[in-house]
């Protein structure tokens, strides 16, 4: 084989701590290498042209580029060699940036390691074979998990593009956290008035299948051809019949069921419709509180339902859906405000979370939109807001900024002053973070027009005095300790990853960071993709976000899906397992270890049993390769011979 080696300097990124010229000179000594050079930016257009020119001039049959991580530029260089007439798999990449130049300043050692990595790549390349992908058709349906504003936007955009959409929501209604909000910053428009029409659209689109009260049970398959099992949880109400008239809710005698939509400031009936604008507007029974299930009697709802929709024998149902792409839009949870023992959230009824206050402000909330203290129902006069509760605090494991709290406090303070002009609002803050369009102006208005008093400093303690709360903190601008007596304290609870985020990530085989937020494929350049082809992200499941950003990402994810579906077929990755039938003994151990069900047995004409890989299902993990006793099953592009060739160099 005639091999060419291109050692990238990456400006000074590599050349600063690796002698790239020396690496190239040494490469000339390796077997089969006929050309080696060092180049300043190999990935640039002239850099790629240089590779292509040399392939033609020197009749190169294989190319090694020693540069950065293959994650970003392996596809770039594969295309480059392909354009010069080589098979794209006659290319190898040695990572001498992330694995060498960026992690050590010892130039001599770095250069030595870079030489070894290049040598390994050359040794492997000598065993490379041209590989060819096949085409499989794309199932042009999309699954969207989570129907908050990001998922709704993604669903509507996909639907408008003519795609069949399967929308899964774990709660009884779509709408997510935005449905719980009263108004939105910085325009103070009514949250349900702007979200409501979108929710109604979802219910009216013929190409959107909505599964509410449902969760994704399992996911198999691959981009273009996913198979998804969805668990539809038993609601004990036949939703095909239920008209959402609410008669059952009014007559239900069990009034102490939790009301998560109102953030537990109120209680709900055991059979309930979460809120007036719910989509779908259907009742569901909470069996932990239903007298039929707990005491074995009652049955009022069953008797009263005009359409006979109550079904106490309903079971969870598993539904299978086949889709070609998945958008994950599972949103976020709020930080648990009882974690700060010194604030007494959860112990003192008048110390509440930001979302609880949102429900208090809402006309559909527990107090009909009148601001009242949860303890005694009286109107508060002095209200204190505390920023960064569960944000920017490493001691509670939340060192990141939640991004939305500064804004929602300003909004809530403005609304408070609107509702109760005689009230006094105080905000304790660390810094004000308001970088959006018209955001800082909005905070200014809270301070200047609405007279909200901003105090820069942390609160150390909240305690009751009489029936009021004393907020004790620091004013770091005045350098003094301050105490504010308040009737109501709102903790601006931060954003954290949704409770089941990790579990779902494992089903989808996508990664998440140490806080549970899903990892995008590249923090700047691939913010919507995951590292699993065909799985995209939208909204706060990827990191704290406000509504405009969530909507934008929802649309972006929908655009990505439509770009994927613009083709009728996708090329499969040929880096999959392949069985050598002459050596396969038909033990079928490979079938047992394959996590993807990608191997089946077949009987040849002579009656012998052999394993057979379904190339379109295989993910190239290599488990079968490691398990196979006679080594008959080999992972293409990472065969035993190729790995051994690399190891021989490393251990030489």
């Amino acid at each position, binding site marked *: 084989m005639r091999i060419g080696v291109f050692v990238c300097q990456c400006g000074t990124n590599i050349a600063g701590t690796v002698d790239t010229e020396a690496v190239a000179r040494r490469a000339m000594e390796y077997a089969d290498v006929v050309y080696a050079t060092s180049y300043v930016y190999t990935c640039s257009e002239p850099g790629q042209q240089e590779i292509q020119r040399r392939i033609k001039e020197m009749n190169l049959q294989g190319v090694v580029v020693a540069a950065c991580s293959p994650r970003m530029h392996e596809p770039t260089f594969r295309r480059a060699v392909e354009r010069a007439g080589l098979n794209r798999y006659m290319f190898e990449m040695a990572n001498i940036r992330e694995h060498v130049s960026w992690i050590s300043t010892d130039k001599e050692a770095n250069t030595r390691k870079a030489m070894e990595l290049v040598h390994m790549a050359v040794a492997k390349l000598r065993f490379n074979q041209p590989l060819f992908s096949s085409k499989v058709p794309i199932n042009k349906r999309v699954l969207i998990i989570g129907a908050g504003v990001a998922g709704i936007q993604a669903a509507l955009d996909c639907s408008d593009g003519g795609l069949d959409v399967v929308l899964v929501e774990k709660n009884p209604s779509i709408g997510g956290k935005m449905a719980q909000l009263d108004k939105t910053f910085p325009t103070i428009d009514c949250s349900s008035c702007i979200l409501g029409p979108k929710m109604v659209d979802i219910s009216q689109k013929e190409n959107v299948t909505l599964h509410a009260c449902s969760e994704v049970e399992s996911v198999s398959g691959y981009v273009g051809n996913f198979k998804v099992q969805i668990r539809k949880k038993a609601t004990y109400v036949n939703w095909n019949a239920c008209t959402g008239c609410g008669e059952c809710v009014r007559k239900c005698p069990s009034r102490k069921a939790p009301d998560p939509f109102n953030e537990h400031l109120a209680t709900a009936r055991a059979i309930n419709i979460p809120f007036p604008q719910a989509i779908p507007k259907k009742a569901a029974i909470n069996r932990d509180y239903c007298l039929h299930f707990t005491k074995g009697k009652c049955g009022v709802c069953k008797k009263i339902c005009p359409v006979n929709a109550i079904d106490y024998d309903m079971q969870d149902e598993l539904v299978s859906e086949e889709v070609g792409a998945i958008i994950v839009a599972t949103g976020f949870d709020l930080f648990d405000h009882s974690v700060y*023992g010194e604030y007494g959230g959860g112990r003192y009824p008048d110390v509440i979370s930001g979302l609880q206050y949102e429900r208090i402000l809402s006309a559909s909330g527990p107090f009909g939109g009148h601001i009242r203290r949860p303890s005694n129902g009286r109107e508060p006069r002095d209200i204190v807001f505390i920023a960064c509760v569960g944000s920017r605090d490493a001691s509670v494991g939340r060192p990141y900024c939640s991004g939305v709290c500064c804004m929602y406090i300003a909004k809530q303070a403005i609304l408070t002053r609107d509702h109760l002009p005689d009230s006094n609002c105080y905000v304790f803050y660390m810094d004000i973070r308001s970088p959006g369009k018209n955001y800082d102006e909005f905070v200014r208005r809270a301070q200047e027009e609405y007279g909200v008093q901003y105090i820069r400093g942390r609160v150390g303690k909240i305690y009751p005095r009489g029936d009021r709360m004393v907020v004790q903190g620091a004013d770091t601008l005045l350098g003094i300790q301050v105490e504010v007596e308040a009737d109501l304290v709102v903790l601006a609870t931060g954003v954290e990853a949704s409770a089941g985020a990790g579990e779902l990530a494992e089903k989808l085989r996508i990664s998440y960071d140490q806080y549970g937020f899903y990892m995008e494929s590249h923090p700047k350049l691939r913010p919507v993709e995951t590292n699993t082809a065909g799985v995209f992200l939208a909204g706060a499941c990827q990191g704290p976000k406000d509504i405009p950003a969530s909507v934008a990402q929802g649309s972006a994810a929908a655009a990505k899906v439509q770009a994927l579906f613009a083709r009728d077929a996708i090329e499969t990755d040929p880096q999959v397992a392949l069985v050598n039938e002459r050596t396969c003994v038909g033990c079928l151990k490979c079938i047992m270890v394959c996590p993807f069900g990608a191997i089946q047995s077949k009987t040849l004409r002579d009656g012998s049993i052999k394993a057979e890989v379904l190339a379109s299902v295989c993910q190239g993990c290599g488990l079968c390769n490691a398990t196979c006793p006679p080594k008959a099953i080999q992972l293409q592009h990472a065969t035993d011979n190729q790995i051994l060739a690399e190891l021989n160099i490393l251990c030489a």
Partner: protein
Amino acid sequence: MPVELKPKKTTVAYYQGCSLEQMASEFDVSTRVVCDALGVELVEIPDWSCCGSTPAHSYDPLLSAALSGRNLAIAEQQGFDVVMTPCPGCLKALKGALKVFKDPNKREAFLEILQMPFQGNIQAVSNLQLYFETIGTEAIRNRVTKPLTSLSIVPYYGCLISRPPDFMQFDDPENPISMDRILEALGASVPEFPFKTECCGATYGVTRNEIVGKLTGRILDMANRVGAQAIAVSCPLCQQNLDLRQAQVNRYWRRDFHMPVLYISQFMGLAFGVEPESLGIDKLFVEADSLLDILSREGERDQSVGGKMA
């Protein structure tokens, strides 16, 4: 060859420290009585020495570690795996020594100074940790013969008992509840006390006692507001500031607090039916006679009720 003492399961090494020999001797006396009543044998560490207190660790943490390391090493030689101390300052010093020992960068210097064999297989706990985690509130409740039913008591934890959290590894750092639960087990009513971890001013009592006057006054005021008849503490310095300096606080605030401040072990002793004299209650500066009166009246009433029923 030295005889190896193999202590029983309910036997722990006891390190009372200097405070409990002098100012806080009633803490020592009552702790011993209560542990005895709960079936825990306290074995005083033979030839124990001072932990060095604040001066040692503010001068050189290694000095502090070595001073406490000696006491730990003796206890370990005696075959103990737990040493209990009621004084949070001493506990901090003992735990500090273990922390230094476990730090690979400091271990060598520590052992060099110590000049004694030391494996570090010993654990340092507070009296509260022993009562709350090892013995448990259920066992304490079962031992009660004279429940403190008619008393309203607030627990005051101070700064050190649960903090810093990673270091002390006991109870909630901002809202500790161990003493609350113990007092409830004794039958007392325990109002929510928001100032249970507010600073008492600590050693400023010596150098700038107006600070202690101000801070301690707030704590006493809050105890009063929530309707407490007495405060329970578990730290000699807290007790000193709240009790000994209560007269100074009264002068500073022009108030007339008369709030008895007892060690948790003294309350436990009373509930276990131990005579007040055996618990050192006569040593308090703010007399607890009012409490004792309430308790004895309650006892009489119970008897008379019992008499009628018989």
